[in-house]
């Protein structure tokens, strides 16, 4: 099994190409290199014997070739062959595996489907990958209380499939929802296209059963929104596997909306499309989704899946409303009028479910499609305040021009979550320039008052950029919280927080938040 084959959104990177070259392509040479790697990172036979005794031989992977299929997640630029992979079959075995890691002082990395885009599931050398792929039972669906209890390896879309017979669904819908797991969604606080209205994973998780680094099991959260004590569930969601491993998840289910209407509108500029979004929001409408693509992204999508977008349009906007029929009908008319007032050059209202699915297919295929118009690309995930969208896009265009690289923009316009795709050709020696541009775009988002990441997570990818967004004290407090859960730092080390090993002794300088610079807020 190669989990990478299931990645929903991923980008090829030159690292990948390099690794292929270094390892040779196929044949004994590859196995040899892999074996060497495994021996370097491999664990002692006594350790392996302990895991085998606890979990069974069929749940422990030591074969170097098989270990290699766990060397990266959806961000293939970072690779590390783990010392050991274990595949526990239930929560008890996850606890047993974690306790063995504790006994042997080993770091461990939890892994779902491996679709993450920030290297959050990157293995640790001489560490253990704990795959949750076998914990894929839906333990209960309760239509009365509208909740489902799941094991972490259940895929996102399977929750909705299980709830659908009751007229219910699970709201968070990351693009990789067919394959990504709910456990991974909890780790990353995954969003999706509909989170402007419905929120993120954190807003839909009620209770978590978690195995802490010492092997103890705790329940975080509770049956209702009523909390008794600080929201530990809330801090765990989005902690990228650094606070523990979730083994059971209770999620809220929502009633399937009565009506869903979707339109696709073309605009003469990304600014006009952005202004349209602002007008929609100013009219007091909270769309279920507002997505934007620029000319380059549209071109890629149409080449790949022919979803009915207009090739050549400078900007395409997808707006979706859902809810009670009367509300949707009224507000949909308002949205149409706003689009027309802002001079949309074409307005297509989805004619039915098939047409709507086609529009979404185009949007959700964007990342993969970009792979067809460029040999390599980096994807960023920064967020800017919605009102800064125009400024951000202008600056990104200028930065791309300066770097001599094309940037395709596909983004969640409603919540300002950009997904700029930096296109480049590694074979033409553009890799370093592209990586720099990509990082600078993420940091630009911070400068504009936003965030390094809206949904992909910090992981390995952006850990060294964290000091751009947070001061030393802020990061120190995060480390204190981390140590409260995992005092020895064995849970997914090297992710989320910058480390000297990863980033050098002095990771990039902290820049004051623009509000601080403007005197709006103060810092000591």
């Amino acid at each position, binding site marked *: 099994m190669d989990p990478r084959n299931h990645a929903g959104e991923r980008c090829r990177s030159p690292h990948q190409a390099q690794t292929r070259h270094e390892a040779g392509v196929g044949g004994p040479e590859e196995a040899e290199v892999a074996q060497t790697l495994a021996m370097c990172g491999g664990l002692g036979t006594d350790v392996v014997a302990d895991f085998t005794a606890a979990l069974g031989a069929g749940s422990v992977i030591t074969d170097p070739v098989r270990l290699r299929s766990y060397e990266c997640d959806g961000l293939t630029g970072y690779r590390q062959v783990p010392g050991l992979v274990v595949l526990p079959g239930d929560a008890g075995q996850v606890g047993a595996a974690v306790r063995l890691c504790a006994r042997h002082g080993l770091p461990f990395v939890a892994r779902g489907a491996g679709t993450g885009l920030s290297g959050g599931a990157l293995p640790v050398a001489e560490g253990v990958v704990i795959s949750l792929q076998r914990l894929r039972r839906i333990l209960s669906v309760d239509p009365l209380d*509208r909740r489902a209890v799941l094991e972490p390896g259940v895929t996102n879309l399977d929750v909705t499939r299980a709830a659908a017979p009751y007229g219910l669904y699970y709201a968070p819908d990351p693009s990789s929802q067919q394959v990504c797991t709910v456990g991974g969604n909890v780790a990353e606080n995954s969003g999706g296209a509909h989170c402007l209205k419905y929120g993120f994973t*954190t807003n839909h998780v009620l209770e978590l059963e978690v195995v802490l680094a010492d092997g103890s099991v705790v329940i975080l959260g509770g049956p209702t*929104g009523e*909390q008794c004590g600080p*929201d*530990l569930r809330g*801090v765990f969601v989005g902690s990228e596997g650094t606070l523990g491993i979730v083994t059971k998840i209770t999620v809220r289910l929502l009633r399937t909306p009565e009506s869903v209407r979707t339109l696709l509108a073309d605009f003469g500029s990304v600014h006009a499309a952005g202004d349209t979004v602002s007008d929609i929001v100013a009219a007091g409408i909270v769309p279920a989704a507002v997505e934007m693509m620029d000319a380059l992204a549209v071109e890629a999508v149409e080449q790949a899946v022919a979803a009915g977008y207009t090739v050549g349009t400078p900007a395409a906007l997808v707006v979706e409303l859902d809810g009670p029929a009367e509300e949707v009908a009224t507000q949909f008319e308002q949205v149409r009028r706003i689009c027309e007032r802002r001079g949309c050059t074409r307005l297509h209202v989805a004619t039915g479910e098939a047409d709507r699915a086609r529009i979404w297919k185009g949007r959700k295929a964007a990342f993969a499609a970009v792979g067809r118009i460029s040999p390599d690309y980096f994807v960023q995930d920064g967020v800017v305040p*919605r009102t800064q969208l125009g400024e951000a896009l202008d600056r990104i265009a200028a930065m791309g021009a300066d770097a001599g690289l094309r940037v395709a923009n596909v983004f969640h316009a409603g919540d300002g979550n950009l997904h700029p795709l930096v296109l480049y050709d590694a074979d033409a020696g553009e890799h370093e320039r592209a990586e720099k541009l990509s990082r600078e775009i993420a940091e630009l988002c911070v400068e504009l008052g936003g965030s390094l990441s809206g949904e992909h997570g910090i992981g390995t990818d952006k850990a060294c950029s964290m000091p751009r967004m947070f001061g030393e004290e802020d990061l120190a*407090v995060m480390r204190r919280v981390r140590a409260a859960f995992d005092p020895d730092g064995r849970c997914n080390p090297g992710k989320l927080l910058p480390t000297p090993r990863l980033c050098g002794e002095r990771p990039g300088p902290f820049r004051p938040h623009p509000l601080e610079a403007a005197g709006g807020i103060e*810092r000591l």
Partner: protein
Amino acid sequence: MTGSMTVLRPTGLATAREAMLGTAGRLVISGAGTAPDWGGPLGAVDAVLDTTGLAGVVRHNPGDMTISVLAGTPLRPLQDVLAGHGQRVALDAARVRRGATVGGLVATGDAGPSALAFGTLRDLVIGAIVVLSDGTVSRSGSHVIKNVAGYDLTKLLHGCFGTLGLLVEVILRLHPVPPATRTVAVGCPLEGAARLCRSVLDGPCEPVAVEWCDGRLLVRLEGTERGVASRAQRLADLLAAPVLDEGDAEAAWARHAEIVDRRGDGAAVLRVGLPPSRLPGVVASLGASAVTAGPATGVATLRLPPEAVAAAHAAVYAAGGTSMLRHRPAGCDAPAWGPPPAALPVLASVRRALDPDGRLGPGRFSPWMDADLDGPR
């Protein structure tokens, strides 16, 4: 607390940090004082950290529908300001009427009926600046609603009862003020209310609040004029009940808030959260003299004789719920919280990490936290 208690009243981040560092002893953080006896009884403290000087809007971004305010800002006047922009903080906790501050509402994890649609403040707070007891200033989040960079520390402050740090500034996500609101009311006992609530939720009307109090089920709808009028009629037909006129609707919800908020008569007030389907049965068994209950949220507020509190905690816990004392009448020594949760070791560990000397809000999580953790002996 006595009249001679030292009161520290910071007016900004710098003075907040000075206040925290300038006192060696234990502190209680106090806002408008609308929930002084929620949670465990306060232990001995050396000073009061009064947040009412930390008031005002730091930055309102109407186009982004976000606002940052100093934590001592009362929510009610803030809502008036936001209404001028057609915006609101989607929170209707009962004690907002009495001047509760944003920071106090966050620290107590308080919420009202519309939590059904909008969640609690944990779902609405998108950033914060916090001063820890050692003077550390921690900032997290920003003026964007979608943000996964770093740990979401704002969540830890929600429901911490002032034991983890001082909220100085809070960034909130805003929602539009709906053009129209209607309430449908149907007289019924609580058990029947749960059945009616089920039929409402099974339908497409998407109410923002469903609450039972005073022998009536109240169902609130929000949206466009046309949409709400038509949905309210659908609901009225379904429930064979009237759509309240504007004045009656306002009065019904004011009455609900008044019952949630009522004190006196020697009764204790217990807030409980239960799996919604368990709520009517458990509530009926507790012998409460007044009840507001959300059959859709599973959250209820009960007035109980003080001697019934311990048994109520146990019954709620046995049914898979949580409970907290919101008012302790004089002489009542009932525990503030139900049996300790499985997460208590983590809670204690987080507390030690952020307030190692146990300086803040001693006693608030008694009887869960031992004296050791609550402060130096």
